[in-house]
């Protein structure tokens, strides 16, 4: 496809290979956890969800929010953020801005209530700088851990985001260099792995998966890198250059239309009527509601919606909070629709893949699996070419340990979460269990006499871990299958069945183990 000199090709191969070797295992971790995070909603409802007849933001919530507003410090009524929990519950976060002594930066300080959207019963109440307390705003420690691992490798902010941003750049470099290196992309598009488990077979496997997933690899790497660098580098730089370091001025210019200040007390218009009107204008589910300056004449209500059928961009409708009148659709960025705003708006749905409900999530999950395969097959190809050298043989075993150990550690995190739910803090024990699972996977990997015997061991462990999870969930007081069927809660049942099928598949499938043994022998 490309016409490069031998020297250029060698340089590109070196860039492609060495960037993959140095960052490949971390990249695999980010991609694998990202694949799980695509199903974050399902994981959340499976692990922590209760029975619900409708999405809690689809039922009347006006009376709940007004009642809750009387129970919080009046200074926390500057801003109210509302979103749905995993069951019939909603979170209502009443807050204002204050300097967080932990970071020295402005942060949201307030009171968060977890309410039953139907009865108004308060399940939980927390106060302070809420974003420092994940248990206050996320019902599932398991989902939170997997998402944190994907977003910032469970490292402190902003370092984790910078690392994942760099990984995104490395992935883009691998995609572009791979495209330029591969001279016969279209000609090889249907060439399956050649038999015989030769070096060329390993190359076929990597090239085939990489070729088919090329456009999405670039899109996911670009959007992921953008999302990582936006808050750590992009916006701070923009604030410094264009707004003299004033973050609030930048935020107002980019995301909040100007409002003439009017502190005159005025009751909030009927929130349910606002939400009904917003639904009529944007058919996608309501995902988030923000009420700015509650109880004042200059109150504004933002209503976020999932994209409508066939759409990709999220929709935000803006209302006058006191009058309840529709003020217009909020552009993604700035005061008027723009190409830049649309591109910015595309970053989130194209990375998360939940713009078309379960259909897009399944496809994005499958693409995630394909990219895991590309990463691992690339690492295997590199080590295969250098087989016999002690350092690369050791690295090949490390690749196997990480490849199989990561899913095992993720399952261990789920075990730790379910075991700790009844009696301990899942936000502490979920990450600890992941570490324990990873340590066990490493010990198994090191203790195995050769690489050929690794795979059957990992498969056995993975199979048992998968099969045990639904049983453990039920034992920990999770929703029964009868309730799930009776109340039409498909998430719980689907995840349980998939885990059972995966467990059976892992325990039964031993065929490829022999092939790995052959590779090790070679």
């Amino acid at each position, binding site marked *: 496809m490309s016409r490069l000199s031998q020297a250029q090709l060698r340089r590109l191969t070196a860039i492609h290979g060495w960037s993959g070797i140095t960052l490949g295992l971390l990249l695999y971790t980010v991609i694998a956890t990202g694949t799980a995070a695509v199903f974050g909603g399902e994981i959340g409802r499976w692990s922590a969800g209760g029975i619900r007849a409708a999405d809690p933001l689809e039922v009347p919530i006006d009376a709940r929010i007004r009642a809750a507003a009387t129970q919080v410090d009046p200074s926390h009524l500057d801003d109210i953020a509302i979103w749905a929990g995993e069951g019939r519950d909603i979170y209502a976060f009443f807050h204002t801005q204050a300097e967080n002594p932990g970071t020295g930066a402005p942060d949201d300080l307030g009171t968060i209530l977890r309410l039953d959207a139907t009865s108004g019963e308060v399940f939980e109440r927390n106060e302070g700088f809420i974003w420092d307390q994940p248990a206050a705003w996320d019902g599932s420690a398991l989902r939170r851990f997997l998402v944190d691992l994907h977003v910032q490798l469970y490292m402190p902010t902003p370092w984790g985001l910078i690392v994942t941003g760099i990984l995104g750049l490395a992935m883009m470099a691998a995609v572009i260099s791979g495209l330029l290196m591969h001279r016969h992309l279209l000609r090889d*598009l249907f*060439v*399956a792995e050649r038999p015989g488990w030769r070096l060329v077979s390993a190359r076929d496997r990597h090239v085939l*998966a990489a070729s088919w997933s090329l*456009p999405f690899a670039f899109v996911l790497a670009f959007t992921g890198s953008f999302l990582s660098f936006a808050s750590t580098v992009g916006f701070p730089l923009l604030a410094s250059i264009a707004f003299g370091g004033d973050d609030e001025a930048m935020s107002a210019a980019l995301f909040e239309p100007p409002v003439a200040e009017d502190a005159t007390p005025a009751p909030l218009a009927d929130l349910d009527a606002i939400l009904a009107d917003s639904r009529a204008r944007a058919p996608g589910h309501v995902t988030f509601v923000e009420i700015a300056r509650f109880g004042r004449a200059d109150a504004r209500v933002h209503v976020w919606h999932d994209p409508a059928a*066939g759409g990709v961009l999220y929709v935000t409708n803006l209302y006058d909070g006191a009058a309840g009148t529709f003020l217009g659709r909020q552009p993604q960025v700035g005061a008027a629709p723009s190409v830049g705003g649309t591109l910015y708006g595309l970053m989130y749905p194209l990375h998360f893949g939940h713009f078309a409900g379960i259909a897009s999530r399944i496809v994005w999950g499958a693409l995630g699996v*394909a990219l895991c395969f590309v990463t691992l097959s690339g690492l295997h190809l590199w080590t295969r070419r250098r087989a016999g050298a002690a350092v690369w043989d050791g690295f090949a075993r490390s690749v196997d340990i990480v490849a199989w150990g990561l899913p095992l550690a993720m399952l261990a995190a789920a075990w730790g979460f379910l075991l700790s739910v009844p009696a301990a803090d899942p936000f502490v024990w979920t990450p600890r269990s992941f570490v324990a699972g990873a340590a066990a996977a490493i010990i198994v990997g090191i203790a195995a006499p050769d690489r050929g015997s690794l795979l059957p061991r990992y498969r056995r462990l993975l199979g048992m871990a998968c099969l045990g999870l639904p049983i453990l969930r039920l034992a920990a007081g999770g929703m029964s299958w009868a309730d799930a069927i009776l109340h039409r809660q498909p998430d719980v049942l689907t995840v349980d069945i998939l885990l059972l099928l995966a467990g059976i598949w892992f325990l039964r499938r031993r065929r490829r183990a022999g092939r790995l043994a052959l590779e090790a022998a070679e």
Partner: protein
Amino acid sequence: MLPVVLAATAISTAALGHLASTDPKRRRVFHLPAPRRRHAGAAWAATLAPGAIVAVVSGAGGLFVWLGAVSVIGWALASARPRRATGLGGMVERFLTQTHE
């Protein structure tokens, strides 16, 4: 949106199955006789045209879902070795291979 995307994906899958089963290099690598007819242009058109229909009928969201699905299915079809392919891809491939040999 979903029925249109599913139908378009099915048509693209069939066309990709044809392209895979009649691909000259793939057949050469696996020591299979060259197919008499391939009609690669028409097959590629049949693969990609449903995407245009999806874009018009189901919008950008449908187009991205179709594109992602075709990428994954294309990989799965191409990964399956000739004569060992199973499932829908295998059925399509076996049928087309027999037709074209």
